[in-house]
């Protein structure tokens, strides 16, 4: 180890010498340091540099000056301190007086330094080191020694190991200075020299750091693994807390996975921003399709009858959506029919639709047919209407909801009960019948099918005063007229003239119809109570819907035509409180 160190140092020195020899940079002469060993004398040293040619003798002078003097004096002693040095003995040394020295040749000043002697004190290394044993420990392993250099204070060294040999060297500095002087010569201390032999002293074993680190890491790894694999959830939760999974309130992630779209829609419909998408008008266009009519469906009972009777309330395999409360519990109250129209939440509509579905007389087969054909779970209400429409277009005589509005939501259960009560005698179809659907997708209405008795006993239309002040004619009025005249026929006579591309009765068509019908025999007016064939508008909601009320409107004014189911805006304003 020492040999290697020595070789390395030698190599460095050689390299340094070779470097300096080949260095061609110009070096100015400069004062390297000024030093006072004991504050009584001082010396200054300088380097000559390679400025001059070697042939020309260099004439360098060191000049000095005290602060209170004017002239520069030359160095008194160039020899004592060695080459390129200047020695000032005690007579030239004033301790607290500022000096300035400068290195100059005849014409040029190369370097200058100013100092005071008390600032440049660097003690000489101690000489003649000697040591003595102070005391030993009780075990005999450690001992204290004391060094005594000549002309210096005593230096104690404590707690040396008796079994070892030591090499000691000392350097000193002025107490108020930070710079140390040179190191002294090496002093060899060996306790065996003075006859102290330690019998029981053995080579001490160093602390096995390597083993400690290795075992510590292994232990930590084992602990971590055991915690991770531990069955105890509490410890695991404490050290490795679970990362929270993103969650939307009210939505079950499993629901999304199963892909039950309508249930998901119902859940998402709780959030208002989703609502508008449900009732876009495009849905109507999407679901209205031309399809091959099914002749078997003609023989079925009127849809309205099915709708009105409430015998088939019990659950059928196909009826109704299974309300398994998936995800809707947070926002909806299932199975509670809502007649409060102010609650515009479609969840209510959904629950009501379910309720309604259960209560309706919708044919099981039809529903099942829907299901089988569509191959999907029961659609929600918005899809129900067009779907039904879709199914019912297969039959010309099938009965459909008149598309008064996009949503005929909550009032239906109460509505149809009232209607059914009213119509128990008449059992009249009081909705317009869609006879055809134009390729453009528009619906052509025609008078309802008279499959029940009593229809002929309705009021004759000749005695009706068609209120011409309204833009629209009440379909009820027209239908009554038509029903009277064409009571034996299933097919209306009007339709050929009543056809319009837009599918609605216009005033022209109605007038012609009325004119045609006016010539017919006027049957005595029916003694029956006037039937509200159409539900009156109870509340006009947003463009998306009309809420219908089956009761006849109160007649505050005689001007108001009670037979007309439609209410104009002015009349509505009079009626409504």
């Amino acid at each position: 180890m020492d040999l290697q160190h020595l070789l390395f140092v030698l190599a460095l020195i050689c390299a340094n010498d070779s470097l300096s020899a080949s260095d061609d940079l110009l070096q100015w002469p400069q004062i390297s340091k000024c030093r006072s060993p004991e504050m009584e004398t001082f010396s200054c040293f300088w380097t000559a540099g390679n400025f001059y040619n070697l042939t020309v003798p260099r004439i360098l002078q060191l000049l000095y000056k005290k602060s209170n003097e004017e002239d520069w004096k030359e160095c008194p002693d160039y020899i004592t301190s060695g080459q390129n040095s200047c020695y000032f003995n005690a007579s030239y040394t004033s301790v607290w007086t500022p000096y300035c020295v400068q290195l100059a040749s005849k014409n040029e000043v190369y370097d200058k330094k100013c100092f005071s002697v008390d600032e440049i004190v660097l003690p000489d290394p101690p000489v003649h080191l000697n040591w003595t044993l102070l005391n030993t420990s009780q075990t005999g392993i450690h001992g204290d020694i004391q060094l005594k250099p000549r002309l210096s204070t005593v230096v104690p060294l404590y707690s040396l190991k008796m079994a070892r040999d030591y090499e000691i060297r000392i350097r000193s500095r002025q107490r108020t200075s930070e710079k140390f002087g040179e190191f002294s010569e090496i002093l060899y201390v060996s306790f065996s020299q003075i006859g102290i032999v330690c019998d029981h002293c053995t080579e001490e074993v160093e602390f096995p750091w390597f083993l400690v680190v290795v075992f510590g890491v292994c232990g930590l790894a084992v602990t971590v693994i055991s915690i991770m694999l531990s069955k105890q959830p509490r410890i695991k939760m404490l050290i490795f807390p679970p990362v929270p999974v993103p969650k939307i309130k009210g939505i079950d992630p499993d629901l999304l996975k199963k892909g039950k779209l309508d249930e998901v829609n119902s859940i998402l419909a709780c959030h208002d921003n989703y609502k508008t998408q449900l009732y876009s008008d495009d849905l109507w266009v999407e679901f209205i399709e031309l399809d091959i009519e099914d002749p078997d469906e003609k023989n079925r009972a009127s849809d309205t009858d099915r709708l009105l009777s409430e015998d088939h309330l019990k659950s059928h395999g196909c009826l109704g959506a299974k309300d398994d409360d998936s995800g809707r519990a947070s926002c909806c109250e299932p199975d509670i029919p809502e007649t409060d129209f102010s609650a515009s939440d479609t969840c209510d509509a959904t629950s009501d639709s379910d309720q309604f579905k259960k209560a309706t007389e919708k044919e099981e087969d039809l529903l099942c047919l829907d299901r089988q054909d569509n191959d999907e779970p029961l659609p929600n209400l918005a899809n129900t209407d067009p779907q039904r429409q879709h199914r019912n277009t297969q039959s010309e005589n099938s009965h459909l909801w008149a598309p008064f509005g996009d949503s005929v939501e909550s009032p239906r259960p109460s509505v149809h009960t009232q209607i059914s009560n009213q119509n128990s005698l008449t059992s009249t179809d009081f909705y317009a019948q869609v006879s055809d659907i134009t390729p453009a997708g528009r619906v052509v209405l025609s008078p309802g099918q008279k499959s029940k008795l009593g229809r002929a006993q309705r009021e004759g239309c000749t005695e009706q005063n068609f209120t011409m002040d309204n833009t629209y004619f009440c379909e009820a009025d027209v239908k009554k007229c038509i029903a009277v005249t064409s009571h034996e026929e299933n097919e209306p006579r009007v339709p050929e003239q009543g056809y319009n591309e837009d599918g609605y009765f216009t005033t022209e068509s109605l007038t012609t119809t009325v004119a045609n019908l006016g010539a017919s025999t006027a049957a005595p007016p029916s003694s029956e109570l006037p039937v509200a064939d159409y539900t009156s508008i109870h509340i006009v909601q947003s463009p998306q819907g009309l809420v219908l009320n089956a009761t006849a409107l109160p007649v505050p004014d005689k001007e108001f035509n009670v037979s007309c189911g439609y209410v104009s805006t002015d009349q509505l304003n009079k009626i409504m409180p």
Partner: protein
Amino acid sequence: GLLLVALLVSHMLLTKEGVTSLPICPNGSVNCQLSLEELFDRAVKLSHYIHFLSSEMFNEFDERYAQGRGFIAKAVNSCHTASLTTPEDKEQAQQIHHEDLLNLILGVLRSWNDPLVHLASEVQRMKEAPETILWKAVEIEEQNKRLLEGMEKIVGRVQSGVVENDIYTPWDGLPSLQLADEDSRLFAFYNLLHCLRRDSHKIDNYLKVLKCRLIHDNNC
């Protein structure tokens, strides 16, 4: 236990550079007098401590404020005590009469009384003055007063008869410490601290020489 800890801590604090608790006169004794040796011991310790503090303070100031300002080149050291002719080396200190030396020491100490008071107060106004410089300035001023008292006692012991001591140099450097220009103000501080370090070194050396000469008969 608490008392022991307090005693230990106080002992540790007091055994800092040069300030150890020396035996004092027991209470109640009338003719108690410290010996000259003890007086000199205390004086040397104090002077050593003062020089140590002033040296540290100068180094800190130099490091903090004077870097790159070229103060050293400008510091020709016109200290206010330069007019006092003091021994300039060991030989001269050994040759001067001890009474004269004592009077000189007293004169220098008295001359520094006033500047030290102002230094302690003006240092606190320095921009972002480090806590250590502030503390040292206050400590030096306090210790200097104590040393002055001790020296007067020593002089009273050593000198026979009444001595007229008019060695004193007034200090007029206060305006320079309060200059508006920061560079000039900092140079004034630098100069003052440099002079303080030098003069405290002088006093420390003089007292050690005196102690060696008077107490140990030059066998130090």
